[in-house]
């Protein structure tokens, strides 16, 4: 210890001459850094109320609550996160997991109050000074807690695919299914959107945990035809999937298919409940399409004796006869029907009501009758020359193929329409060896067909010409020549879809071997006898019913395409459920009256 040790400490005084460390006015001049994790912000319009933030919050700081002015719609639960700042730890996990990236954090950090109860607010809905701050914590690029890409599905596409009617989609393997099931955040937004309200999050969870028996049970609770839906469903659920906002939606349809693929009919039957209390009441169902089968299934489970009458040789309706085998193999359809039959449904095929059996007899023999006949008659083009012999309807063609008849389409085929039937017809034609071109009035994004189907068709070499309207069909040495006109989309104002309008002078011709029309179908109500015609009301082409399918003739119910306008299998299945519920309610009250 020398003199230096005594003198050098006085060096501290140098600091007195320097600028102080103290920040002069920290409150106003020190905003949080650009990434500061301050108070939350939420973009009310982007948020769909999926509740992932609530799930991941380890502090249970987030509640989902209804907010005035936000309606519950099919894609939005109408709920918004309400954050309890008596719990929040500002970790930002909620921001990281937000499926829509609507939840962020501002760089504001001062909130002082004497009342502890005020520290709860709904970001975005409650007026706060930091609502519009553009700085603060955001998810970094390259950092995302959720997988945005779905597991690729193995498919046979392109040249290999069109060689045969083998199923194109191969289905997930166990690893793939589990990986895809992992992506789900279990928000349940999809459940409401699914017409049949299937327990999507639950069965995905069951896949993830490899409880396939439970998964099957869950599927059959709400959907008697899961194999069908696992293949050809229009999957509205996927369009609202929370993950779809920042990437691919969860492949709900393929996951469903994965479950049912593990259960051939015998295994599924072994797994499901089969014996139900018999209540002695009889119900007749006309049409063994998805709606009819679904209603039959539910009614059997409720204890009714159900007979389904089908005019075709096999049950399945449009799914069997309108969907080609490469999408919906025949044996899968058979399995599907077998399971339902095993539940106790009596199926009588080849019986056309009105021809083989009179509607009145049904009315007499049964306690209730359900009409589920569907739309079978194709719409006409209503243009000159459409009755040319080489102009066929898509639905008829598919029907013929399904019945094993040979169909000749030639080398060049034009398909008119943009729905699933159009694409099925086009791809079938492709498999028959033709060059196929689809003509559609509107744009690709307006097509009612599933996007996967469009994509697969394109991959198989189907050409698509959009904004094209056929105006005339001529005969060209026995084969048809189609004159079509280009159209432009004219905006119809907000909320209405744009309308195609012919462009003058932009007409072109196409020489083809066959023209397949697939612009929609209508129903055939011939089987309804004269005596009842006044008692069943119609709404344009559809049967007017009550909420649960009851027509004006209380004993008669209706379901499926003849009632709802969505025209897809899952809606028909949901309709079947509704009708079953309606019939049960009707018969139960009637019994009570007695």
């Amino acid at each position, binding site marked *: 210890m020398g003199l230096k040790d005594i003198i050098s400490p006085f060096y501290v005084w140098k600091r007195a001459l320097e600028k102080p460390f103290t920040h002069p006015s920290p*409150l106003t001049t020190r905003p949080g850094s650009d990434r500061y994790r301050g108070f939350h912000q939420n973009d009310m319009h982007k948020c769909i109320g999926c509740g992932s933030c609530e799930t991941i919050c380890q*502090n249970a700081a987030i509640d989902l609550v209804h907010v005035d002015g936000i309606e519950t719609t099919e894609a939005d639960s109408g709920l918004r996160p309400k954050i309890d700042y008596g719990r929040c730890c500002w970790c930002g996990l909620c921001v990281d997991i937000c499926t829509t990236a609507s939840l962020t954090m501002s760089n504001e950090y001062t909130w002082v*109050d004497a009342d502890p109860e005020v520290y709860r607010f709904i970001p975005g809905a409650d007026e706060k000074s930091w609502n519009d701050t553009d700085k603060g914590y955001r998810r970094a690029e390259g950092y995302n807690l959720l997988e945005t890409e779905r597991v690729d599905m193995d498919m046979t596409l392109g040249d290999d695919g069109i060689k045969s009617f083998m199923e194109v989609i191969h289905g997930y393997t166990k690893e793939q299914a589990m990986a895809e099931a992992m992506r789900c955040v279990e928000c349940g937004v999809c459940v409401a959107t699914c017409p049949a309200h299937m327990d999507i999050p639950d069965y995905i969870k069951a896949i993830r945990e490899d409880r396939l028996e439970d998964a099957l049970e869950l599927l059959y609770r709400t959907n008697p035809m899961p194999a069908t839906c696992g293949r050809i469903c229009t999957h509205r659920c996927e369009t609202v999937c929370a993950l779809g906002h920042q990437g691919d939606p969860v492949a709900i349809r393929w996951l469903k298919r994965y479950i049912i693929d593990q259960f051939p009919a015998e295994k599924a039957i072994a797994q499901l409940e089969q014996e139900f209390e018999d209540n002695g009441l009889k119900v007749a169902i006309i049409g063994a399409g998805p709606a009819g089968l679904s209603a039959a299934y539910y009614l059997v489970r409720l204890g009714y004796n159900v007979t389904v009458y089908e005019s075709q040789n096999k049950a399945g309706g449009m799914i069997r006869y309108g969907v080609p085998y490469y999408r919906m193999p025949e044996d899968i359809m058979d399995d599907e029907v077998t399971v339902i039959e095993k539940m106790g449904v009596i199926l009588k095929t080849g019986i056309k009501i009105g021809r083989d059996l009179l509607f009145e007899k049904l009315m007499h023999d049964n306690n209730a009758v359900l009409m589920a006949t569907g739309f079978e008659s194709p719409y006409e083009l209503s243009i000159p020359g459409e009755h040319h012999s080489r102009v066929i309807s898509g639905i008829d063609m598919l029907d013929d193929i399904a019945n094993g008849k040979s169909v000749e389409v030639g080398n060049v085929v034009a398909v008119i329409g943009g729905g699933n039937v159009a694409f099925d017809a086009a791809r079938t034609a492709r498999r028959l060896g033709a060059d196929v071109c689809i003509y559609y009035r509107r744009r690709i994004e307006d097509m009612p067909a599933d996007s996967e189907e469009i994509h697969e068709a394109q991959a198989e070499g189907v050409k698509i010409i959009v904004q094209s309207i056929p105006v005339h069909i001529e005969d060209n040495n026995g084969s048809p020549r189609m004159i079509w006109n280009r159209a432009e989309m004219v905006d119809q104002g907000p909320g209405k879809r744009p309308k195609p309008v012919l462009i003058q002078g932009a007409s072109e011709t196409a020489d083809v071997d066959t023209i397949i029309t697939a612009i929609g179908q209508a129903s055939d109500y011939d089987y309804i006898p004269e005596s009842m015609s006044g008692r069943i009301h119609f709404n344009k082409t559809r049967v007017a019913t009550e909420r649960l399918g009851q027509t004006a003739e209380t004993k008669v119910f209706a379901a499926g395409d003849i009632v709802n306008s969505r025209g897809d299998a899952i809606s028909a299945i949901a309709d079947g459920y509704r009708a079953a519920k309606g019939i049960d309610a009707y018969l139960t009250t009637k019994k009570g009256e007695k």
Partner: protein
Amino acid sequence: MKSTENKIIHPLENAGVPEDQRHLYCDASPRPYPALNKYVERFLNWARANSLWILGYGTGCGAIELRPLLTSRFDISQYGMNPRPTPRQSSVFIIGGYLSVKTLKRVIRSYEQMQNPKFVVGLGSCTVNGGMYWDSYNTVNRLDYYLPVDVYVAGCMPRPEAIIAGFEKLKSTIMAGQAEGANEYAERFDWYKSNQKKIIKDWDMPDYNW
């Protein structure tokens, strides 16, 4: 939480204190002190607000942000604040976040040793509703059940600036004559005590320590 439950005044038990030591402690409950003449009180409140002495008890995480605050970078001495090492001389008790039951016991002791008027500032989520440790078996969730709190500062941890803002708020509350936590504690003494005793299982201290 202005509740009137447990309003019955009963003689204090001085639980836990051996009989022969009772005389060492005060067995009277605290009493509220009414404000003086309006103008005098206004002047005194001004002095109280501008000379806030902080009790140097780092009860939780929050203590870490008090250091920059008390030292050069943010230097709250320029606002008339100073750390004091003893509760006797301090007027502000900063609860730095969560309170474990064991700490709560000491906090109550320290708080009761502070002299009226005294103020409590709760930092962070933990004092409002338990914060991160909402489901912990050892931390209390809501501070205002155990002590009257004048100001809460949100954050986890609140930045020093936010705490300064909290002090500004506390100052304005004091100057407005509304920071009467000590009187509230005296008036609702039984309610506070019953809450405290509910969770502090080994109550081996006098009911009220001055």
